């Protein structure tokens, strides 16, 4: 049999045989359906995770170190850091003075306040006190208006730059520039709107589009500076290795804190890499759980398909005998049954893929942006066929080896 065209014929034969037993075939493929649903959903989730990570991580410059009281990713070591002293604005100034090479040292702190425009109020909005140097340590820029400048900071002006979501939800299409926004009990003048940045919510991080930037000086004055902890974003000089620069920053911080050589750091250095670690951890869990479910379901499904194929071969022993009597070679019989099991699995796979579109829709609505992509569908179809071939092989092999006369005599 010429192979391609022979395969096509075998597919036709297999389909004709399947049509008679569709219901049974679909029932046994439940495992395949769940397995494919799991594999597509896992890959879609991983994809969405990776995208939302890239989106939110891109806001944080790769050449920026963050000096903070605790590491971003604490992982249950919370008590270890509880007694560390706060990072203060004074320390930020000292650090800037001592780190000549740094492009910028930007202190920032945050709190939560309700914000109000007209009759619209949003509670628990992240208010971030920062300086004009925010523009140097983050890649996000205002899409409308401007960020505050050195003068705004120095003069403790009551100006603010709002996130895209705040703009959309509170101003409902109105131009917010120069409008008054109530932050807590105080009036601020909106001078800019940040571009859309996405959310790090999937990693327990903030929604970057629902925050309000105010000058750190104003922030301290109105919301209190005593006992407040700051983060220092340090932008490394161009060309410096971030690892080397980290040592320099640690050294200067230890000097500022007057730590003895035998004392541990009482602050932490964070960078995008730490986020990457967190991301990888989440990713690992998603993949592990997804693959486990996929593996188990596909195994169970595969065993089911193997079983149905054994039944099919036994039931059709006489048919196999007839086919052999009129000249079917072993290969033709093997191909016929392999195709049959592949088609069963493909049918299950197709149902699984259809269901995973619904699953992706749910993930998209509840967790993070996610959509089933064409390559993922391709992989899923490939996996279905592979399971079909693996599960169908032994029954198909057995069918192909049947002795013609014994098969023909079978009742």
């Amino acid at each position, binding site marked *: 049999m010429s192979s391609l065209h022979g395969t096509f014929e075998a597919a036709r034969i297999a389909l004709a045989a399947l049509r008679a037993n569709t219901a049974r075939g679909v029932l046994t493929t439940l495992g395949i359906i769940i397995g494919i649903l799991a594999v597509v959903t896992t890959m879609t989730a991983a994809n969405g995770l990776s995208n939302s990570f890239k989106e939110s991580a891109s806001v944080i410059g790769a050449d920026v170190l963050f000096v903070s009281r605790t590491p971003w990713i604490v992982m249950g070591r919370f008590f270890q850091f509880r007694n560390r002293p706060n990072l203060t604005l004074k320390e930020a100034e000292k650090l800037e003075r001592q780190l000549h090479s740094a492009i910028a040292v930007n202190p920032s702190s945050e709190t939560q306040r309700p914000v109000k425009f007209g009759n619209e109020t949003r509670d628990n909005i992240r208010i971030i006190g920062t300086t004009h140097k925010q523009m140097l340590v983050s890649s996000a820029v205002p899409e409308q208006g401007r960020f505050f400048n050195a003068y705004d900071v120095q003069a403790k002006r009551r100006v603010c730059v709002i996130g895209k979501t705040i703009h959309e939800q509170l101003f409902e299409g109105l131009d917010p520039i120069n409008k008054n926004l109530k932050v807590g009990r105080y009036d601020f003048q909106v001078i800019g709107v940040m571009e859309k940045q996405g959310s790090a919510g999937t990693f327990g991080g903030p929604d970057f589009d629902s925050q309000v930037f105010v000058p750190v000086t104003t922030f301290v004055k109105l919301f209190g500076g005593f006992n407040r902890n700051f983060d220092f974003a340090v932008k490394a000089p161009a060309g410096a290795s971030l690892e080397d620069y980290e040592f320099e920053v640690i050294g200067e911080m230890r000097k500022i804190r007057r730590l003895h050589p035998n004392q541990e750091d009482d602050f932490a250095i964070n960078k995008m890499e730490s986020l990457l670690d967190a991301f990888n951890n989440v990713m690992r869990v998603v993949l592990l759980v997804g693959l486990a479910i996929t593996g188990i379901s596909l195994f169970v499904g595969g065993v089911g398909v193997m079983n149905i194929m054994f039944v099919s071969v036994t039931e059709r022993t006489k048919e196999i005998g007839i086919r052999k009597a009129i*000249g079917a070679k072993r290969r033709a019989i093997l191909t016929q049954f392999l195709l049959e099991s592949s088609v069963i699995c493909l049918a299950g796979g197709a149902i699984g893929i259809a269901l995973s579109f619904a699953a992706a829709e749910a993930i998209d609505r509840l967790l993070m942006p996610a959509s089933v992509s064409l390559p993922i569908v391709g992989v899923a179809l490939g996996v279905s066929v592979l399971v079909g071939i693996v599960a169908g092989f032994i029954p198909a092999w057995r069918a192909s080896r049947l002795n013609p006369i014994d098969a023909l005599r079978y009742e």
Partner: protein
Amino acid sequence: MALELRDVNKTYEMNHVGVHALRGVSFLLAENEYVAIMGPSGSGKSTLMNIIGCLDVPSSGQYLIDGQDVSTFGEDRLAEVRNSKIGFVFQTFNLLPRADIFHNVELPLIYRGLRPARRRELAMAAIESVGLADRIKHKPNELSGGQRQRVAIARALVNDPSIILADEPTGNLDTATGAEIMAIFDELQAKGNSILLVTHEEDVARHAHRVIRLRDGLVESDAVRREAA
């Protein structure tokens, strides 16, 4: 295609007891012969046909096709012989129940690896030659016994085999229908095919030119019919 059996034995093992179905059968079959095999039930007729049709192998002795020992053939070679050198017609038709008539007749051509257009041409010609052109879309269970046997004959001759083997082809048919089937065999033989058929009926055997009688796995007689000679 010439066939030769040399001292062919076939023994079935049943509960450690050997059943001797054939006990040293020898004969020659030249091209374009018309042979009837007769004999009482259990005398080994079907066993013999299965061996000649390459569906089964002798326990001992030799079976030669055009001088070549079949026992040296591999599985694929045997499949090829069954596919294009031999056409088998069974007492119980042995059609694929779920496939329509056209597909049943087309199947040997598929296994031969022919393209669809050529298959259609040959299958239609074979179906027409047994007078069932208007039934190609029907399933076997929508046909009468005689029609089913004609489908089986169309399937057997679609690859233009040298020999057609028919094991009691009229056994499940009434006399009139059986006569129709025999007319087809007569025609095929006149066109140059060999026909080897098993029958219990003298009326059917009368179509053949030579009659081989088996008894207890042995050739009892092998003679050219007087009328035919």
